[in-house]
């Protein structure tokens, strides 16, 4: 199991090195999701029988982080979608991407993303889940921003990463809270401790954090705007991310945590309100789009809203409806996206006002898109019909809210089926424009995947009982009643059938009456400045300006200003702490008496410093500075630190040499400061020197603890076979520190080298 989850990451690396670009070789990566699909399918009978298969791998047991994977109904449903639709997307992408030289990188990112998604849905440990959660954000960033040369593409990738990454950060807070309160990060253990979590004072906080993570990932209002922006990605990516994987991660989390955190009014009503509002808002928005992918993006957001709403209702019926609808939506939405991609690929347009009559050049695509549209509208004998039935059944059993919820879902479903018709029928019906007449027909590997998805929609539509075992297991995992009858096609004449009929008819009427036009897009654009999208963009711009202002103030390029900032800040901090500690008297008797050497060195140093301050020659100042350094070396020698003295001595020599090298090239000595600045600097440095001396005295006043130094002295020879204790500490006792220090030195050398050698032309500077 561990290999299955991590194989995507491994192959992500392999695909980078073995560039499978030419001819049929580029279809080889598709075997990765295919073999994973087969692997997961072998577990299907056991999972359908209601078993939970656990795989335990220890990772960081001390922190309670273990790679525990659990394959139950919910994980199985998502794994099959990820690998199944993944296989089709891999094949499709190999045929779709025109820039073959980059295709290996694409598959690398895609495999990483797939592995992250699999890890997310399979892990039983919340912290591991979080790691995979973040991995999906990062790998989807590369996929969304695939067209690196387009600014819009890069910007939407950054926006998606900022929103989902921010949500992920809050999710981490939620995970840590739950782990702390529940005493474990294992979802199984937390489910058992559900009552403790719900009664805890920070339950509301937990909910907020988890919701923030799920809502940003699943594009709920007000975070929905990253999803339409992410449509800048190549179509295979959109199909994969937005039908079966990325956006469903939030849904998965809510599903998974339903038995842990759910059941409380706060959980249910929040989900119902947010889901319901998103559903209505996005369904309404999809009316005003003329870009095919735009329509699909908003209908995806609406579908996600619907699923969140169903999870919020929290009954067995609603979980069943949600589970079925997840599958329904994945099948028809992936098919529609793939068809859109074929259209875009063939005629280089996605504009609904221009596309028509394409069935004449791509009949199989038209059939696939048509079936997908029918499934989305919920026509009988498609899987969508079953899904729609279950949704109405679930909303009608909510007691007090039944009428309102059913009405809301009815309106939204009418709008959604309109969106389905627009995406599935509009481009293919009518007369073919002459400009498209000589378009070449798409190849089989492009239209094969959507046709297969459409066939699956039909298959499950005719025989809904096929999906029952898996779907019922999902319901059981979410905390619903596991003993459910099989799904049936025909429930007899009742209110639900009437509602379904109304939905289908409403969609058809709306489709016949409305024609997508640019004026509608412009109409919606007028409200753009009120949208949450512009609010977030303004916020981001504000943060940028503030940080620009701060950087400009603090990092202004004058070394003396940096020094003043650092020293003043230190001074304030030190004085703040020292005020209480200042001793009333200093016990000089405990210190070593002042010797002749000390006096001589002191006089040397002080006079050198005075020369340094008042000289107007650079050479003199450097030499006086060196005198100060060498005097300190002497002090080290007198007080028994020969190692320190040696190092200090060589460093001082090199510093002087460095100064000399630069000195010869500098312009003549200039007086850049006036009297006021000098006085200010003098005051700051005097106070700083005083405070440091004070600290030195305070340290001497403290009773010394010699356990550590005695340990080193006693054990240097017996443990490390060395007589020079200082050196033994450096290379043995604290060798890791030294290792890190030389790494830092390396980084510093690289910094100096690249800063001085790299010549940036003025056009590249900002």
């Amino acid at each position, binding site marked *: 199991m561990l290999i299955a989850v991590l194989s995507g990451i491994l192959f992500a690396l392999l695909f980078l090195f073995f560039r499978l670009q030419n001819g049929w070789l580029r279809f080889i990566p598709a075997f990765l999701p295919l073999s994973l699909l087969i692997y997961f399918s072998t577990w299907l009978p056991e999972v359908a029988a209601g078993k939970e298969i656990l795989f335990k791998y220890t990772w960081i047991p001390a922190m309670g982080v273990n790679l525990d994977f659990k394959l139950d109904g919910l994980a199985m449903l998502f794994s099959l979608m990820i690998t199944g639709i993944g296989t089709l997307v891999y094949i499709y992408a190999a045929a779709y991407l025109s820039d073959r030289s980059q295709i290996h990188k694409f598959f690398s990112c895609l495999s990483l993303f797939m592995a992250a998604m699999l890890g997310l849905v399979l892990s039983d440990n919340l912290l591991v889940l979080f790691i995979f959660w973040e991995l999906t954000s990062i790998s989807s960033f590369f996929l969304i921003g695939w067209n690196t040369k387009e600014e819009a593409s890069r910007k939407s990738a950054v926006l998606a990463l900022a929103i989902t990454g921010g949500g992920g950060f809050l999710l981490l807070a939620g995970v840590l809270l739950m782990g702390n309160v529940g005493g474990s990060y294992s979802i199984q253990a937390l489910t058992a401790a559900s009552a403790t979590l719900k009664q805890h004072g920070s339950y509301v906080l937990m909910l907020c954090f988890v919701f923030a993570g799920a809502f940003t990932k699943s594009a709920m209002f007000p975070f929905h705007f990253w999803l339409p922006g992410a449509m800048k990605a190549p179509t295979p990516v959109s199909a994969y991310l937005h039908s079966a994987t990325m956006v469903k991660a939030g849904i998965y989390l809510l599903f998974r945590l339903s038995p842990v955190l759910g059941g409380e009014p706060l959980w249910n009503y929040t989900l119902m309100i947010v889901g319901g509002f998103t559903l209505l808002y996005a369904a309404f928005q999809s009316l005003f789009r003329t870009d095919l992918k735009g329509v699909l993006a908003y209908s995806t957001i609406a579908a996600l809203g619907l699923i969140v709403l169903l999870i919020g209702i929290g009954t067995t019926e609603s979980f069943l409806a949600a589970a079925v609808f997840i599958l329904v939506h994945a099948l028809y939405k992936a098919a529609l996206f793939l068809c859109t991609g074929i259209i875009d690929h063939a005629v280089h347009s996605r504009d609904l006002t221009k596309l028509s009559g394409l069935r004449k050049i791509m009949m199989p695509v038209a059939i696939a898109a048509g079936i997908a549209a029918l499934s989305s509208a919920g026509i009988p004998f498609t899987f969508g019909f079953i899904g729609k039935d279950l949704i109405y059944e679930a909303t009608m059993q909510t007691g007090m809210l039944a009428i309102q919820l059913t009405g809301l879902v009815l309106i939204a479903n009418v709008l959604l089926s309109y969106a389905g018709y627009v995406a599935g029928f509009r481009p293919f019906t009518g007369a073919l424009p002459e400009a498209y007449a000589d378009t070449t027909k798409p190849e089989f590997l492009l239209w094969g995947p959507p046709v297969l998805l459409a066939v699956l929609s039909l298959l499950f539509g005719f025989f809904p009982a096929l999906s029952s075992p898996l779907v019922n297991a999902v319901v059981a995992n979410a905390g619903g009643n596991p003993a459910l009858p099989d799904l049936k096609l025909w429930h007899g004449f009742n209110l639900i059938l009437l509602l379904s009929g109304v939905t289908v008819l409403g969609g058809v009427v709306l489709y016949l009456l409305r024609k997508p036009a640019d004026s509608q897009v412009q109409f919606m654009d007028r409200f753009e400045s009120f949208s949450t999208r512009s609010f977030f963009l303004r916020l981001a711009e504000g943060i940028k300006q503030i940080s620009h202002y701060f950087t400009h103030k603090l990092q202004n390029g004058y070394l003396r200003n940096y020094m003043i900032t650092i020293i003043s800040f230190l001074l304030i901090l030190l004085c703040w702490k020292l005020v209480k500690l200042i001793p009333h008297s200093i016990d000089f008797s405990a210190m070593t008496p002042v010797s002749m050497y000390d006096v001589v060195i002191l006089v040397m140093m002080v006079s050198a410093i005075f020369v340094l301050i008042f000289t107007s020659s650079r050479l003199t100042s450097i030499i006086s500075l060196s005198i100060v350094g060498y005097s300190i070396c002497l002090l080290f020698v007198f007080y028994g630190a020969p190692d320190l003295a*040696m190092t200090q001595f*060589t460093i001082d*020599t*090199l510093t002087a*040499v*460095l100064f000399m*090298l630069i000195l010869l090239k500098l312009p003549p000595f200039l007086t850049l400061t006036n009297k006021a600045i000098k006085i200010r600097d003098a005051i700051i440095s005097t106070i700083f020197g005083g405070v440091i001396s004070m600290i030195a005295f305070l340290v001497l006043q403290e009773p010394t603890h010699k356990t550590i130094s005695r340990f080193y002295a006693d054990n240097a020879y017996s443990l490390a076979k060395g007589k*020079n204790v200082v050196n033994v500490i450096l290379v043995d006792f604290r060798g890791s520190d030294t290792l890190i220090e030389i790494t830092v030195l*390396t980084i510093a*050398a690289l910094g100096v080298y690249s800063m001085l050698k790299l010549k940036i032309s003025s056009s590249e500077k900002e």
Partner: protein
Amino acid sequence: MNSIILRTASNYLLPMLILFSVFVLLRGHYEPGGGFVGGLVAAIAFVLHSFAHGLKETRRFLRIHPGVFIPIGLLLSLISAVLPMIGGQSLMTGLWFNEPVPVIGLIGSALFFEIGVYFVVFGVTLTMLFTITESV
């Protein structure tokens, strides 16, 4: 600095200083010294050479870019730190040969760690100084 005395002196000083730096490096485990100081002394030897003969001459004399020493040293230190882990011991455990080698004394992983530090310090110092000299 075109001084014939300095030039002649540096020709003799360079090997002596390098020898001294190796001496400082090797004695570090028992007496004052060590890889860090050793590396600095070796760097000073070449800086002195460049003062007398010019940077181009020193570079030609050194043949390879001083930056090359940095990864070599880092790798050496890292290997000597990680090596005990292969034998199941924890990171940085000292491994020692039983018999002392003449002149050098006991050889252990700490010595290779020190040589790594020596190379890194030598490379870093010369890279920085040479780069700055060339740029001003």
